[in-house]
C-alpha cells in the first residue's frame, strides 16, 4: 500500500471514530439533559406557603411560629377575595330564579377552581384527602391553576366540518355585570401575596415518605425498595456467580458437559426479563413458597437469576486473565488448589469481578419486568429489614411506569415522576462510575 493511501485511511478511520463518539455523546445529552432538567424540578422549585404549612403539618418540618405567621399573612391577603365571594352569594339570593340557577352553577365551578388553587374555602368542612386540605404547594402548578380560575374551558363545535376546538372563556365575562366582575383581576393581582412563593431546596424528596399517593412528600419507599432489591439480588448472585466462575475456570474439565453448561449460561443472559419475572412468580412464589405473595425476597431472587450470567461471565474472564505465573508461584510455595484460588487468583481477579458485580447491580436497580410479578406494589410504606422477607415494596423503575399508566392525577405529579426518573438514572450512573473508579483504583494497586 502506498504511504499516502495508508495515511488517508488512517485519517478516515479516526474521523469516523470521532464522529461516532460525538454522536454518542450527543445522544446521551439529548436523553439525559431533559431528564436532569425536569427531574431537578422535584428538588428545586418555588414553594408556596401551602408547601411550608403541609411540610409542618404532615412531616413536622419547619418553624411553627414562622409558618403560622406566614399563614396568617396569606389569610389576610385572601380575605378580600373571600369577602367578595360572600358578597356575591348574598347578591345571588336576590336574583331572579333563572339567573340564579345559571349563576349558581358558574359559582360552584369557580369555587372548585379556587379550592384547587388555595385550598378549602372559609366555612368548608376539613376534607378527608390531604391533597384537598392544601392549596397548590408549587408555584409552577399554582400558575396553571390560576388559569383555571381565570378561564373556563369549553369546546367550540360551531363548524360541523371540523373537530371541536378548545376555547378559553374568561370567567370575568361569565360574571359580567355582577359584583364578581372585578374579582378576577383582583385574584390575579393578589395571587403572589396569597401563596407567597419562595425558592425551596427540597432535598428530603429522597428521604421523605410519600403522602396521599405522591401528592406530597418524597420517594423514600421507592428508594428503599430499590436499594433492598439491588442489594438482595447481589447477595444471592455474587457468591453463586463467583463460585460458578471458579468452578468453570479451575475445576471443570473441557468436556461436553461444561460446554453445554457454558452455552446454557450464555442463553440465560439472553432470556427476556419479563420471562424471568414470570419464572420468579411461578417458581419462587408458587412452587417454593418463599413468601405468601410478592415480596422483596422473591424479587431479589428473581433479579439474582437475571444478573447471574453477567456476574459469571465477568468473573470467568477476570479469573482467566490472572497470569498463570501467580498460580505456579503459589503452588510451588506449597499452597493447595483451593488456597491458591482464595489467596492469589481471586484477589488478582478482583477488579474484573467487582466491575461485573457493580454493573449488574446497576442493571438490577433499573429492571422493571422481573419485579412486576414478584416484588413491586404501587404504594407502600418503607419496609424494615425483617419485613423484606414477606412484604412487597414500591421500587423506582416500577413506580415510574406505574405512575404514568395508573395514577389518575399524573398531570399534577409530573415533577414527582421526573424526580424518580432522575434518581433512577443517577443511581445507575453512579453505580457505573463507581465500577470504573473501583476498577482503576484496584488495578493501580495491583500494578504497584
Amino acid at each position, binding site marked *: 500500500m502506498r504511504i499516502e493511501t495508508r495515511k488517508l485511511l488512517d485519517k478516515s478511520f479516526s474521523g469516523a471514530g470521532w464522529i461516532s463518539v460525538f454522536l454518542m455523546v450527543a445522544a446521551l445529552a439529548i436523553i439525559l439533559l431533559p431528564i436532569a432538567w425536569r427531574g431537578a424540578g422535584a428538588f428545586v422549585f418555588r414553594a408556596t406557603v401551602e408547601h411550608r404549612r403541609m411540610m409542618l403539618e404532615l412531616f413536622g418540618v419547619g418553624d411553627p411560629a414562622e409558618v403560622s405567621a406566614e399563614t396568617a399573612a396569606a389569610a389576610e391577603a385572601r380575605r378580600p377575595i373571600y369577602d367578595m365571594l360572600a358578597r356575591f352569594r348574598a347578591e345571588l339570593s336576590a336574583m331572579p330564579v333563572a339567573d340564579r340557577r345559571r349563576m349558581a352553577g358558574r359559582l360552584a365551578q369557580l369555587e372548585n377552581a379556587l379550592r384547587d388553587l388555595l385550598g378549602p374555602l372559609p366555612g368548608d368542612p376539613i376534607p378527608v384527602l390531604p391533597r384537598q386540605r392544601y392549596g397548590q404547594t408549587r408555584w409552577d402548578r399554582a400558575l396553571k391553576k390560576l388559569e383555571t380560575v381565570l378561564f373556563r374551558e369549553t369546546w367550540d363545535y360551531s363548524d360541523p366540518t371540523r373537530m371541536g376546538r378548545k376555547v378559553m372563556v374568561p370567567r370575568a365575562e361569565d360574571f359580567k355585570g355582577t359584583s364578581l366582575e372585578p374579582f378576577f383581576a383582583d385574584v390575579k393581582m393578589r395571587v403572589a401575596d396569597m401563596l407567597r412563593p419562595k425558592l425551596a431546596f427540597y432535598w428530603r424528596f429522597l428521604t421523605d415518605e410519600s403522602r396521599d399517593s405522591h401528592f406530597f412528600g418524597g420517594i423514600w419507599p421507592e428508594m428503599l425498595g430499590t436499594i433492598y432489591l439491588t442489594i438482595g439480588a447481589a447477595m444471592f448472585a455474587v457468591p453463586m456467580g463467583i463460585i460458578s466462575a471458579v468452578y468453570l475456570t479451575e475445576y471443570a474439565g473441557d468436556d461436553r458437559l461444561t460446554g453445554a453448561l457454558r452455552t446454557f449460561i450464555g442463553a440465560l443472559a439472553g432470556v427476556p426479563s419479563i420471562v424471568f419475572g414470570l419464572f420468579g412468580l411461578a417458581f419462587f412464589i408458587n412452587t417454593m413458597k418463599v413468601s405468601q405473595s410478592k415480596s422483596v425476597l422473591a424479587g431479589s431472587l428473581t433479579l439474582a437469576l437475571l444478573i447471574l450470567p453477567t456476574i459469571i461471565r465477568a468473573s470467568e474472564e477476570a479469573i482467566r486473565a490472572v497470569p498463570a505465573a501467580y498460580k505456579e508461584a503459589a503452588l510451588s510455595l*506449597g499452597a493447595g488448589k483451593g488456597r491458591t484460588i482464595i489467596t492469589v487468583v481471586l484477589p488478582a481477579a478482583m477488579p474484573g469481578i467487582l466491575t461485573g458485580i457493580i454493573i449488574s447491580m446497576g442493571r438490577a436497580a433499573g429492571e422493571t419486568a422481573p419485579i412486576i410479578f414478584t416484588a413491586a406494589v404501587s404504594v407502600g410504606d418503607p419496609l424494615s429489614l425483617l419485613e423484606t422477607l414477606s412484604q412487597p415494596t414500591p421500587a423506582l423503575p416500577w413506580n415510574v411506569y406505574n405512575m404514568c399508566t395508573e395514577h389518575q392525577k399524573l398531570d399534577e405529579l409530573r415533577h414527582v415522576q421526573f424526580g424518580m426518573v432522575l434518581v433512577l438514572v443517577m443511581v445507575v450512573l453512579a453505580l457505573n462510575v463507581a465500577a470504573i473508579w473501583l476498577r482503576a483504583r484496584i488495578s493501580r*494497586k495491583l500494578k*504497584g
Partner: protein
Amino acid sequence: MGSSISLLGMECRGCAQELPAEIRPRISARDFSVYYGSIAAVKRVAFDMPDGLITAIIGPSGCGKSTFLRSINRMNDLIPRCSVSGSLTFDGHEIYGPDIDVIALRQRIGMVFQKPNPFPKSIFDNVAYGPRLQGVRDRSKLAEIVERSLARAALWDEVKDRLHDNALGLSGGQQQRLCIARSLAVEPDVLLMDEPTSALDPRATAKIEELMLELRGTYTIVIVTHNMQQAARVSDLTAFLYEGELIEFDRTGTLFSRPKCKKTEDYITGRFG
C-alpha cells in the same frame, strides 16, 4: 541409600568420573522419563543432584530441561496428559510414589521461575505468603521470618524501608531476588531455578549468581540455564541434555574443559543449540 554419587550418563561411554565419596545425593533420577501424551520429553535420564551443591542442567532449547526440573517438585501435575516413568527420589522417597504429600514436598523443594513472578501484594506479604500457609500467624514471628529471608536473598537493605509497598514496583532483578526470598521463607531443602536470570540485565544477573554461591552449602540447588558461562561460574556439577536424553554429567570444570562426548563439545563451543 548409596553414599556416593553415581554418574550414569552411560550412553556416552566413559563419561563417568567418581566424585568424592562424602557427597550425599539429595535427588536421584534413575531411568526417569517424562511424557506429554505419548511423546517423551525426558528419556530415561539418570543422575544425582548432591546435597549442598549446585547442579546445572544445560542443553539446547526444547531438550526437556524445564520438563525435568518441574517434575522434581511435581509442577507438571498441572499439565493434563503429562506422565512419568522410572524412579525419581528425594532423600530416598519416590517423588511420584503413591503416599507422597505433594504439598509437603513442594514446601521442601522450592522453585524460582524464569520470569520474576511476585504476587501483586506488598513485599512483606509476598515473603510471608509461604509461612502463613503453614499457619504462622504471629506478627512478630512473621516479621522475623521476612527479615531473615530477605537478608538471605541479599534484598533486605534495599527494601527494609518499603516492606509494605507493592512488590511489582521493584526492579526486575529485585523482583527475582524477592521470589528467591519468598521461596527461602518456606525453609526448603532444595531450590529449583529455571533460567532465573534470563529476564535480567548483567548486573542483576551477577547479583543473583553471587547469591547462589552464598546459598551453596545450605541448600541443594538445581539450576537450568542457557548461559554456559553462568553454568561454569556457579555450578559444581553439570548435566547436558540433548533431545530429552542425558548426554553427559560431570564436574562442571571437567565437563567444560574436557568434555568426553562430541555432542557436548559441539554444544559448549557453540556449534549448535
